[in-house]
Structure formats: C-alpha cells, structure tokens
C-alpha cells in the first residue's frame, strides 16, 4: 500500500517542479486547440468506407442529387394563399438571390443553381393551344396579375411531380428546394437567406427554412454556444458545491485547477491527434469536469480528518495518499474502462469520445495524485490550521441535514434488509418490462427544443407539403446477360415479328439464314457485331422497299442489345407504379416520385392533357419516345435524377413527413415485404440512400454496438472488482447496485416513452464505470471498519456517519455537476444532463441501501469467508 506514499514524495519535496511540469504539459497540449475542426455531419457517425455510405455517396453522384435546404413560403391570409402576385414576386426574387449564393469563406460551398427546384426554375409541360404541347418555365417572370398567379398554381397542381413538393396541395405554401454542394454551407446559407427575407415587405408571407442539412449544420453552431454556456456553468456549480462542503476558498481552487488541466489537455490531445470536434466529443469537457474533481474531494475530505489528528501536513499527506491510492486508482480505472468500452462501438465519433474521456480520467487521476499534494505543500501552513479547527467541531457532533438524513437510513436498512431486497427485485422485474417497451428512435430535427425555429419550420412545412425528409430507393437491374444461343433464339422471334408482307417475309427469311450462320460465335457481343455487319452488307445492295425491312431488322439487334435498359419497359414501370401506390396507401410516405410518374405525366400531356392517358405507354418505344419528348425542355437532365442514362438503375425519390428513424424503418420494411410478396417482372435489386436512411443505419449500428460495449464494460468492471476485493463474491456484490440502477433507469425510459436515441444509448455503458465508484468506496470502507470493530451492526452504524457523508457528497457533486446541461438549447445535452444526474443520484442511493441490506442478509457468509 505504499505506492501512494512513495509517489507523493516527489510532490512533497518538489511541489514547484510538479506544478511547473503540469502547466507546461497543459500548455503544450492547449497549443493544438486552435486547430479545431468542427464536424456536425451525422454521416460521419458511419466510417467513411462504410458500404452504405459509399453507396449513398455514389447514388448522389449517379443521380446528380444534392443535399437540400428547403425554404417554405406560407401565406394563410390571402384568399389564394401564396398564389398572388406579391408572394410569388418574393418567391421569384428569393430564388434569383439564392441561385448566386456561396460561402464567402469557401467558394466551393455553394447553391447548385441549375438544380434548384422553384417555380421559376422548373419546366412546365403544358398545353400551348390545340394539339400543341409546350415546355416552358412554370414561372418565367413574377406574375403581374391574380389570373397569372392562379395559372401558375393550376399548372403546378396538375403536375404530380410538383404537387406536394413544389406547391402545397392546399395552395397555402410554395417550396424552394436549394441543392447545396456541401452540408457545411447550410447554416451560412440560411442566414444569408434570412437577411434577404428581412428586406421583403412580407404581407402575410411567412418564410421557413428546413431540411436535414440545416438542422445538422445549425446544431454544430449551437453546440459551441452550449459548450460556452454549460461548461463554465458546470464549473461554477461544482465550485459552489465544494465551497458549501468545505468552506475553504483557497483549498478548493486546487480541484478546479485539476479540472481545467484535465479538460484543456484532453481536448488538446483530441484535436492534436487529428480528431474532429463532433457532437459527441463536444460533450467531453462537461463529462470530465465533475469526474476530475471527485478524487480531489476524497483527498481533501480525508486530509481534513487526518490533519487535525496528525497536525503536520507532510505526514498527513503521506498517510492520506497511502490510504486512498488504491481506491482512487480503481475508481479511475473503472470509470475509464466504462468509457473506453465505447471503443467497441462501430461508430467513429463515439469511439473517439469514449477513448478520450477515458484518457481524460487518467489524466485527472495523475494530476490529482501529483498536484493536489504539491498544492497543499505550497499553501501557507496558517490557512491549513484554520481549516482543521473548523472541521473538528463539525465532525464531533455532525448535525448537518445530510448527517440527519443518513442515520435513520442506516437503521432502516439494517432492520428490514429482506423487504428492501424484495422491493428492489420487484422493481427490477417491473423495469425489465419497461425495457422491453423501449422504442429505438432518433431524429436530428428533434435535437432542437420544441420551439426552436428549426422545429417550428419542420412542423409547418411538413403540415403543408408531402415531406421534407428525403430518402432514395435505388432499383437496379439484375437481368442476366444472354448467351449467344439465347440471343439467337430471341432474335429469331424478333425477326419473325417483322415479317408482315411478301417483301418483308423474303427479307426476314434471308436474315434468319444469316442469323443461323453467325450464331456460332463465342460471345453474344461478337455474334451481334458479326450479324450486324452481315445485315448491313445485305441492306447496302437491297432495293428501296427491302432496304427499309433490313433497317427494321437491324433495329432489332439494337433492341436486343438494349434489353438491359429495363427502366424503359412498361411492365417494369408499372411495377414501380404499384410499389409507389402501395407506399402511399400505407400512409408511411408523404409522396414518392419516379420515372414512372414522369412518363405518365408526359404521356398525358402528349395526349391533350387527357387524364385517361395518365398511364404508362404500352411499349418500350412509347416510353422512350415520351421521355425523349420531355428532353426537348430546358432541363432535360432532370430525367437523370430518376433514372441513369443506361436505364439500368432507377431512383424513387421518397419524401417523408417525419424524420424519425422508426418512420424510415417502417418504409424500408414495407418496401422489402412488398418486393417479396410482389416479385418484379425482371430481377431487380433494391437499396436505400439518403440522409434519412443513413440515420437509420448508424442507429442500428449504435444499438448493437452499445449492447456490446455495455456487456464488455460490465465484464471488465466485474473483473476489476474481483481483483480489487480479491473475492468473486465481493466483486459481484459491488456490481449489484449499479446494475439495478441501470435497469431501473432504462425501465423508466421505457415507461415514460422517452426514445432510445444517441445520447441515451451512449450513456448506458459509461454510467456503469461511474456508478461503481460508490460501491467501491462503500465496500472498501465497510470492510476496513468491520476489520476494526468485528461487528456488522457497529460497522453499519459507523458507515452511515463519515463514509456515508463522503459518498453522498460525491453523489451530489457529480449529479449536480451535470445539471447545467439542462440549460442547453439542444435536446441531446439536456437528455445527458437529466440522465446522468438521475443515474448518479439513484445509484448513489441504491449503493447506500442495497449494499448494506445485502451484506446484512449475507453477513455470515461474506465475513466468514473474508476472515478465513
């Protein structure tokens, strides 16, 4: 037990050296802090090479999709909603303004002007007169009359691709969808837009800005605000609590220094090692601060006690440090292990968070055992003397509220142990039921408090539109290529279909002969090439009527070559139509848009806007010709947001009105079930992309990752407890209170309907490491007292005096130390605050109740064993 006293010698003999070294160490690491790189992109919850993320990135590229910022313009006052010249004038001006915007600090971050979806940037396929179809801007210029405004409304409403997306079905709102090159631009962009909006004479117009990128980027900005508020506040709360407990201003400065050193050097190390400041890592300071002061509180409590007996600070310190070295080491190690277990999660920011809090805890431990003694050595002896005297009277007859509360608790626990344990077991059973009711869910928009403008915008716009949350369902052809023999068979059929009259019959017969000749090729491609060359040769010498037949036959080769272009096939498009209808009817999605919708819309307009032609044409040619008609518009490239140019992949753009992960999960499930129950006409694979979907993926990883982290930290802490107490039974005993506490807390979460989201998940494993501290101190002290008294009854009485108060103080400091998080404007921080404060408070109380009750029941066995 002399590591402590040996270690403390350096601090006692060279306090100034220790202090200087500590300051230098901190400053060296602090030098990295200015290089901080903030990252609020939830995509980074997945590793960069994660398959689903690569697919998402690739999908965005292939279909030219961008992250979207959505400006909703709502007018509830005007009789025609937003469709009046004035409001549309604002919409026009705002779109023009937005098109040119970029980030002043980084010109690569900008609005992708060509892909803006706004009334002035979309083409309307319309009837331009009898038999005439027109591709023209929906709103080339702001309307000058009410009639023009209404015409814009009617045209947009008649386009299923725009209705519910560009214009609200109730006519009260219109949307401007601004694609951006980087999500990092979202917050700056929304500020630039707000400045512009402020210059409008908004006559009943309301402007709302939403979209996941805004939520995510704004979160990053508010994160800093919260850090600037919560971290100093936590510091202040801890300081005031210590001042209340110890009433010695000069002395309690030292734990504050330990906390500062810990936070600064850990953050410096985090940034210096190239980590980004993520939503998770931004919480590191506030986690470290209360934990960092705990060991100091133990040293000081003990020092108070002993100093009055020993009366000489050097000897007192040696004694205190040798007493506390082991429990402090173990409590630090268990806490660090709890956090470090997060390294087992498959989520990089959570890993970084866990590892660096663990490192921070060990920095705090080292700083505490080296610096606190040095600090005490550097204090004038006179101030210490005061300190001891004051405490002496306090200790003799302790009548603080805490002391008066603890004594009856001790008596109660000793008298009714079985009832206590039964009640706890019962509560645990109930809690397990609660846990089974936990809803796993998250939604980045809900990271903001209810009245935050982002939440308000989200509510209003999803009320008017078909959904501001995007996911992309990517369908891909899995059609097997044809062998030369199969190709020959297919072609023979296609050729025969061309034999309509005498001329063509003769030509087809010749062609079939050529086909038989060329079919011996090794590859289908080679065979088709040879066949094509042969047919061209025959065509060159053909007369005029035959020439055309040869041309028709040559076209069949091309048709066969293009058979992989399945998303031109009427049966495939109708399949997509059916899938979309199913999704819409299920009520899970607000709207979905696909190549099928576009084809139907064009088909209808080609036939004089006849609603009966709002259908998929009956042939590949019909589809292809409808689509090529559309490509005579201003934005032919819009087609390739929905299908790749090779027609082998299609994108169904799904809009959800709710960004909850469970809403997205339900859609994913519905699609899977539908596709199993309704096999597509050709083999089609489906995969999801889009931010809303990515959130689901990392959530899944987190839930399973957290379970693993929890189990591993449970095992690690358990092993450490067995080593510390040199007994599996005592080790297990130490695990009981916190295990029950965690079960209760999660049970409560299940019952009150609080969703299992990122912060709740992350906290499960780390609280284990924190909460076991109380058990360590309790059991360690109890065993020491029992060795001295030899009686459990005497021990329990003594335990509810000074040791009980020490533990309670620590519970209070840690629990209250986290409460400034409640003032944060961001929900995850609030959750962490409430959760940690309650888990600390409950586990502290549970330790004080369950452990003595259990020991009372098992005393013969426990102490018999220990004594032998």
């Amino acid at each position: 037990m002399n590591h402590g006293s040996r270690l403390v010698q350096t601090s006692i003999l060279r306090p100034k050296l220790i202090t200087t070294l500590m300051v230098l160490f901190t400053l060296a690491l602090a030098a990295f802090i200015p290089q901080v790189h903030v990252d609020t992109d939830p995509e980074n919850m997945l590793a960069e090479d994660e398959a689903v993320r690569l697919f998402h990135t690739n999908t965005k590229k292939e279909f030219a999709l961008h992250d979207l910022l959505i400006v909703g313009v709502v007018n509830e006052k005007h009789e025609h909603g937003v469709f009046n010249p004035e409001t549309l004038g604002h919409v026009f001006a705002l779109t023009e303004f937005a098109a040119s915007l970029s980030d002043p600090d980084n010109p690569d971050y900008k609005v992708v002007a060509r892909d803006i979806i706004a009334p002035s940037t979309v083409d309307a396929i319309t009837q331009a007169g009898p038999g005439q179809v027109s591709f023209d801007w929906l709103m080339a210029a702001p309307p000058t009359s009410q009639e023009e405004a209404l015409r814009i409304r009617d045209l947009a409403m008649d386009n299923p691709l725009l209705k519910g997306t560009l214009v609200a079905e109730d006519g009260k709102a219109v949307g401007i969808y601004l694609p951006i090159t980087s999500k990092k631009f979202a917050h700056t962009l929304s500020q630039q837009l707000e400045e512009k909006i402020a210059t409008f004479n908004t006559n009943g117009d309301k402007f709302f800005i939403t979209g996941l990128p805004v939520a995510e980027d704004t979160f990053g900005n508010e994160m800093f605000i919260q850090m600037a508020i919560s971290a100093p506040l936590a510091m202040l709360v801890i300081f005031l609590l210590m001042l209340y407990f110890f009433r010695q201003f000069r002395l309690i400065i030292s734990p504050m220094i330990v906390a500062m050193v810990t936070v600064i050097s850990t953050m410096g190390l985090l940034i210096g090692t190239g980590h980004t400041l993520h939503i998770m890592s931004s919480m590191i300071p506030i986690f470290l601060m209360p934990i960092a002061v705990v060991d100091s509180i133990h040293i000081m409590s003990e020092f108070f006690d002993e100093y009055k007996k020993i009366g000489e600070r050097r000897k007192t310190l040696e004694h205190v440090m040798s007493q506390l070295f082991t429990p402090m080491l173990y409590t630090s190690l268990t806490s660090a292990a709890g956090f470090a277990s997060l390294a087992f999660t498959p989520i990089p920011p959570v890993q970084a968070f866990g590892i660096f809090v663990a490192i921070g805890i060990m920095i705090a431990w080292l700083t505490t055992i080296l610096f606190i003694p040095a600090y005490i050595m550097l204090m004038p002896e006179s101030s210490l003397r005061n300190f001891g005297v004051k405490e002496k009277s306090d200790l003799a007859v302790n009548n603080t509220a805490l002391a008066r509360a603890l004594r009856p608790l001790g008596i109660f626990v000793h008298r009714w142990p079985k009832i206590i344990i039964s009640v706890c077991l019962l509560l645990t059973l109930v809690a397990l039921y609660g846990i089974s009711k936990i809803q796993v869910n998250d939604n980045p928009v809900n990271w903001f408090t209810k009245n935050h403008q982002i939440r308000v915008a989200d509510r209003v716009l999803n009320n008017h539109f078909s959904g501001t949350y995007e996911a992309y369902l990517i369908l891909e052809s899995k059609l097997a290529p044809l062998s030369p023999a199969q190709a020959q068979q297919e072609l023979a059929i296609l050729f025969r279909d061309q034999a309509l009259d005498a001329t063509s019959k003769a030509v087809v017969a010749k062609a079939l002969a050529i086909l038989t000749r060329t079919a011996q090729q090794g590859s289908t491609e080679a065979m088709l090439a040879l066949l094509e060359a042969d047919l061209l040769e025959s065509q060159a010498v053909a007369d005029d009527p035959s020439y055309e037949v040869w041309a028709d036959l040559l076209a069949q080769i091309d048709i066969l070559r293009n058979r992989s272009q399945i998303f031109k096939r009427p049966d495939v498009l109708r399949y997509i139509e059916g899938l979309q209808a199913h999704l819409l009817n299920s009520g899970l999605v607000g709207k979905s848009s696909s190549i099928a919708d576009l084809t139907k819309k064009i088909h209808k307009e080609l036939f004089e806007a006849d609603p009966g032609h709002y259908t998929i044409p009956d042939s590949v040619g019909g589809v292809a010709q409808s689509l090529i008609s559309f490509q005579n518009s201003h934005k032919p490239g819009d087609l390739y947001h929905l299908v790749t140019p090779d027609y082998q992949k299609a994108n169904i753009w799904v809009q959800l009105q709710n960004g909850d992960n469970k809403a997205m999960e339900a859609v994913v499930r519905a699609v899977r079930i539908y596709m199993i129950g309704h096999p597509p006409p050709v083999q089609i694979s489906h995969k999801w992309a889009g931010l809303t979907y990515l959130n689901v993926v990392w959530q899944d990883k987190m839930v399973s990752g957290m379970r693993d982290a929890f189990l591993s930290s449970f095992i690690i802490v358990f092993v450490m407890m067995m080593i510390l107490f040199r007994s599996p039974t005592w080790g297990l005993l130490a695990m009981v209170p916190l295990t029950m506490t965690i079960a209760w807390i999660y049970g409560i979460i299940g019952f009150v309907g609080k969703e299992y989201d990122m912060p709740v998940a992350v906290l499960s494993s780390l609280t284990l490491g924190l909460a076991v501290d109380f058990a360590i101190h309790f059991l360690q002290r109890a065993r020491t007292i029992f060795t001295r008294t030899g009686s459990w009854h005497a021990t329990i009485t003594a335990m509810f005096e000074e040791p009980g108060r020490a533990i309670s103080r620590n519970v209070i400091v840690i629990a209250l130390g986290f409460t400034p998080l409640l003032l944060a404007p961001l929900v995850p921080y609030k959750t962490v605050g409430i959760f940690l404060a309650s888990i600390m408070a409950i586990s502290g109380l549970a330790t004080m109740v369950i452990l003595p009750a259990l020991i009372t029941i098992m005393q013969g066995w426990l102490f018999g064993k220990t004594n032998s």
Partner: protein
Amino acid sequence: MRPKNLFPLLLLSALLAGPALAAPDLDDIISQANNVAYYSGDDGRADVAMTILDNQSRTRERLFTILRKDIEEGGDQLYFVYFKRPSDVRKTTFLVHKYMDRDDDRWMYLPSLDLVKRIAASDQRTSFMGSHFFHEDLSGRHLDADHHALLEENDTFYVIKNIPKEPADVEFASYTVWIDKKNFLPMKAEYLDKSGALYRTMEVLEVATIAGYPTVLKSRISDLEAGGSTVTRFSNVKYNLGLDDNLFSERYLRRPPREARQ
C-alpha cells in the same frame, strides 16, 4: 430581305480571291456568317451523330438524318429530322418551319404512340433531344434578336459580341462569336451568364469544303457550369439535292421521305 444577302457566294469568292478588298461592315459580316453556317446551297442533307457526354463521362448517342431547304437565302427555312438511334426512338421525326417574322412551327411524330404533336416554339433555347444543343443552335438564331458589336478584328477572326434585345427571354447575358475571315464560318462562341461568367461554349472542330461550301463536320457544345458536352459529327453531307417543299409537310412525318431514311 436586304439585297446584300443575295450575294453571299459572290462575296465569299471575292474574299478568297484577295485580301485587298476593303473590310465588310458589321451587318455584312453577320449575315454572311449566318448564310455560311445555315444557308449553304438551296438545300442540303447530312447524317448526324451526336455523342452526349455528361459530367460523369457517361455517353449517349443520337443518330439522325437532317434535311434542309431554304425558302429564301438568309430567311425562311424548312428542316426535317429523321431519328435512327437509339432504336427505341427510331422513326421519330421532327419538322421545323423556320420563319423570320414569327415563331417557328415545330412538329414531332412519335411512331410508337402513333402521334403527331405540335411543339410550341416560343422558346428556342430548350434542349434538342436531350443534347447540349439547343433547337436554336441547329436552325440558327434570328439575327435581329441581338445587338451586335465588332469587338476585334485580327488576322484570322472577326470577333463579334451579341447582346440580346430581350434579356428576359434567354439564359445568357451575351455571347461572343469568332468568325473565320477566310470563309465566314463561325468557329467559336462563348456564352456569358447574367453574373458575367462563361458557362457555355460552341467550338467547330473540323471543317471541310463540300461542293464548294465550307461545311462543319464536327462541332462541340460544352456546358461549363454542370459539366458535360455534346459532340456532333456530320457525314454524307450533300447540297442542292433539289428537295421538294412537299417533303417538309406534316403528312411526311409518318412516312418520311427516302432522302431522310437512307
């Protein structure tokens, strides 16, 4: 029609004969260039292969035959387009009656839907069949739609800046054309958007003289903003075929003339 437009060939041969001739005035250069680019011969035909390249280097092909007949040199024209590939749009035809004094008439025939459709042509700056060429690039922009200014004249080119008279109708703020002094063929055009940035270019990549007419065999239009370009190759170019006006009537949409099919 101004009389000077009646003598493009005369003027051209005069220019080729010797540089001693005095520089023509701006109007002459422009109408000359217009005639060389769009009015060679009384009529003409070409097989056209368009390769559309997007910003991900994915390509698409369009193969068609184009017939043209001039009603008046530098004035009204008729165009007939017959699609051969992709095979699923084969036999789709496209007819344009270009007028000087009003919006063009445009028809399209979609064989699989058995549908002849008129397409409103009020806006010529829409894509031609999904390519980077606009309808206006194929049949020519009206000369009087822009104000013109000679920016520069060097050994090779007349450099002319064009500013639209109706800026609201077009997506560009101005465009500059480089006209080859030898043959009056516009060899390059650069389009500036409303913020003054270059976003679109047209380049002639290959020229040949066919039947005495300087003829573009290969050109490219590039979209610098989104990325991507369309390269157009002309082959089997012929002039003065003696095409009948009737071939350019609506009824031939469904039954394209032999000149277009072969």
